[in-house]
């Protein structure tokens, strides 16, 4: 199935505003556009940087598969996933998704679905460097639990 899913895995920053505008403008007949943007948080003011590792080769395939599932489940126009890897500073944008649909409910649910699956099924791993120390971010049980809502 050919879906209008635009998948990008990149080290470079992206411009949320430009991406949101371009995505919305590329849609026809859609009544609703939803975007989600993930930002590197510095929970207690000690984060020096975040390192995002991924699995080149598998990453884009996994994201495309998640997007195609979303296109099967909901009545979508286009979808967009951008995910960065490499070294990121606090407040940097780490990733975004966008969905377009004729109906707001579909656009919202598809965006949430993309996020839930991306969190636990796309091969990215985050490591936080704080004051000379670095530790891998643990997966959260609730992220795995979130997938059950979709089955």
């Amino acid at each position, binding site marked *: 199935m050919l879906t209008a899913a635009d998948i990008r895995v990149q080290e470079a920053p992206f411009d949320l505003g430009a991406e949101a505008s371009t995505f919305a403008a590329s849609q026809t007949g859609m009544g609703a556009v939803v975007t989600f943007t*993930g930002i590197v948080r510095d929970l207690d003011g000690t984060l020096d940087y975040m390192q*995002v*590792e*991924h*699995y080149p*080769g*598998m990453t884009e*395939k*996994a994201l495309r598969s998640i997007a195609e599932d979303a296109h099967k489940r909901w009545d979508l126009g286009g979808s967009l996933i951008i*995910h960065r890897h490499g070294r990121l500073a606090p407040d940097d944008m*780490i*990733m975004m998704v966008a969905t377009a649909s004729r109906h707001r409910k579909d656009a919202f649910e598809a965006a949430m679905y993309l*996020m839930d699956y*991306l*969190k*636990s*099924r*796309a*091969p*990215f*791993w*985050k*490591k936080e460097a704080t004051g000379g120390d670095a530790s*891998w*971010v*643990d*997966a959260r049980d609730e992220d*795995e639990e979130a997938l059950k809502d979709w089955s």
Partner: protein
Amino acid sequence: MDVLYFAWVRERIGLPRETVQTGAPTVADLVVELRAREARYDMAFSDLTALRVAVDQELAEWNTPLAGVREVAFFPPMTGG
């Protein structure tokens, strides 16, 4: 067969990928072989509930067969987004 390691699995084993000669019929059998090699492998695989596996770049199970497989990857649960 190429075996890849990511995140703390890569750090514990000390390398990102290696080529392994194996006749292991399943992922679980491959893990047994790897653990028998050295302490660092044994430690990295000591808690399989903390690990995930991909076979030819698709998420797989411990009992997934390895016949004809070119690439196996081990890593912790993903934390993207």
